[in-house]
């Protein structure tokens, strides 16, 4: 509960987690229905939230509805705890619900996410809340909502494969790399929100409850714990995830999703974990990548929970000065492309 006196105005008070109790009940009913019918998009009366559409209004409403006073909340945006969206939403719930927040995946009981699934395996006591911009996987193939509902109702998903067919015909392989359609519990085809397809296998048989909220489109859907989630594909073009040629430049992790960070205008770049918590945890445990910070300087000048790769440039690699020249470090030798497309 937040109270504040502004001048002579009455105190502003928020209900716990901003939404009123009736609204939360309504959202919970939608969530229960969504859990009962895995992958089915349940309509709900999404409210106006004090943030613009596209900033996670759907996810925020789902989080508000499932949040309890003892919960520990983590918010990530593209895997990072320290980007605008994540900071803003974390601050929002600190202010309106007063719940504990964390950047640690293992400590959190509710994780609201935009576009990533954490690298650390989730547990049974956790809920993962996705922010969804477009819940309808068939949207760009069939613009009529009445028709897509029919297609879902009758499980006519030939159209979804037309998209994959087009990918192969045009690019020689399935070029869809994010929002890759999945079939949930052998029935509904679902858009897993714009997570990289790298994360699709994590949805399958996940012990955590996964909830998806689309605020603008007013839809909620869910994957209950331990549900079969299959990425669609062709027999002769099976589903594959992205592969990376190099490990994380900061923590040397392999088999994780990496972000490309441009370092200068001479082709200098590094590939670092997109999951900042995972990367930091590994660095604290002493793992060092080729551009990693030496152990003693890593923890002193960088705030915990922030990715040193983005906020503090580690010594020993190039920094671009105002004049466009490399000022320090070795002479920006381009790192060969760390990311490899689909091997198809």
């Amino acid at each position, binding site marked *: 509960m937040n109270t504040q006196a502004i001048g002579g105005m009455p105190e502003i008070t928020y209900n716990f987690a901003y939404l009123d109790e009736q609204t939360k009940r309504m959202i919970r009913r939608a969530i229960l229905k969504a859990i009962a019918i895995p992958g089915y998009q349940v309509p709900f009366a999404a409210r106006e939230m004090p943030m613009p559409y596209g900033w996670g209004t759907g996810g925020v409403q789902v989080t508000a509805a499932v949040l309890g006073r003892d919960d520990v909340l983590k918010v990530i945006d593209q895997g990072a705890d320290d980007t605008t969206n994540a900071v803003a939403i974390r601050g929002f719930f600190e202010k309106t619900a007063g719940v504990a927040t964390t950047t640690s995946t293992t400590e959190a009981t509710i994780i609201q996410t935009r576009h990533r699934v954490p690298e650390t395996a989730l547990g049974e006591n956790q809920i993962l809340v996705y922010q969804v911009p477009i819940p309808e996987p068939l949207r760009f*193939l069939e613009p009529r909502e009445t028709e897509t509902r*029919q297609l879902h109702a*009758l499980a*006519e998903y030939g*159209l979804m494969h*037309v998209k994959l067919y087009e990918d192969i*015909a045009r690019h020689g392989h399935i070029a869809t790399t994010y929002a890759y359609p999945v079939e949930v519990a052998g029935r509904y085809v679902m858009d897993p929100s714009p997570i990289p397809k790298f994360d699709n296998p994590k949805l399958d048989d996940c012990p955590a409850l996964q909830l998806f909220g689309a605020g603008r489109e007013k839809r909620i859907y869910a994957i209950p714990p331990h549900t079969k989630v299959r990425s669609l594909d062709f027999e*002769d*073009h099976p589903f594959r995830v992205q592969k990376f040629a190099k490990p994380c430049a900061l923590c040397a992790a392999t088999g994780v999703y990496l972000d490309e960070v441009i370092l200068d205008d001479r082709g200098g770049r590094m590939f670092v974990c997109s999951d900042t918590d995972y990367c930091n945890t590994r660095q604290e445990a002493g793992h060092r990548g080729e551009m990693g910070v030496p152990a003693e300087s890593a923890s002193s000048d960088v705030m915990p929970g922030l990715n040193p790769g983005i906020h503090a440039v580690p010594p020993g690699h190039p920094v671009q000065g105002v004049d466009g020249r490399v000022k320090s470090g070795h002479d920006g030798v381009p790192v060969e492309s760390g990311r490899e497309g689909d091997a198809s």
Partner: protein
Amino acid sequence: MTEQPLLVAEGLSKNYGPRIGCRDVSLEVYPGEVLAVVGESGSGKSTLLGLLSTELDPSAGRVSYRMRDGRLADLASLGAAERRLLMRTDWGFVRQNPADGLRMAVSAGGNVGERLMAVGWRHYGNIREEALDWLGKVEIAGDRIDDDPRAFSGGMRQRLQIARNLVTRPRLVFMDEPTGGLDVSVQARLLDLIRQLVAELGLAVIIVTHDLAVARLLSHRMVVMRQGGVIETGLTDQVLDDPREPYTQLLVSSVLAA
């Protein structure tokens, strides 16, 4: 004819408020038969086609279809799922405007393959091979398989639409003015192609046209409509050469001799 009818319509009527779309139409279509529905604009041809293909709900009457297991089923009694399955496997619908029958943003191969994927084909290589085969049958060069229909001429689009419909080897195809809007030489080639495919595959076709030449070239039997009702039916040659009704006589005599 000793065979049993494929499609039976009994007393079909459709009212649009006080206006009559279609009035008490009964007809039968047999396997492998081409039935032409002719008449002037506004005579209820397209309404009738809509009723037969269950795209419109009749105000009265019913349509029955012989399923693959030989049972004659009332289409209104089928569930939505069963009816849609029928439409995308056992039936085809070739529309006058190819943009209504094709996915214009999807490549030719995707357009032909869609029905295959809808009935469970999940092998890219096989789908592509089948699509190529069908493009060949409708005289579209194989190297156009990855072009989308927006890059096709009107005649090609219409042929692509035919391939897309025939790929699941339907038994009954509805055609609504398939040659409308095409120039005469393209029309002739398309008609030739339709005639050849119909004979090859033993398709039953219900073709709606205002063009008596199309009816004469393609159909075995024809139905003449006026003001929503059927005024004359019979073998095509018989109706065109020896029309009984004054209106049919007028229609036949109004065709310009080329």
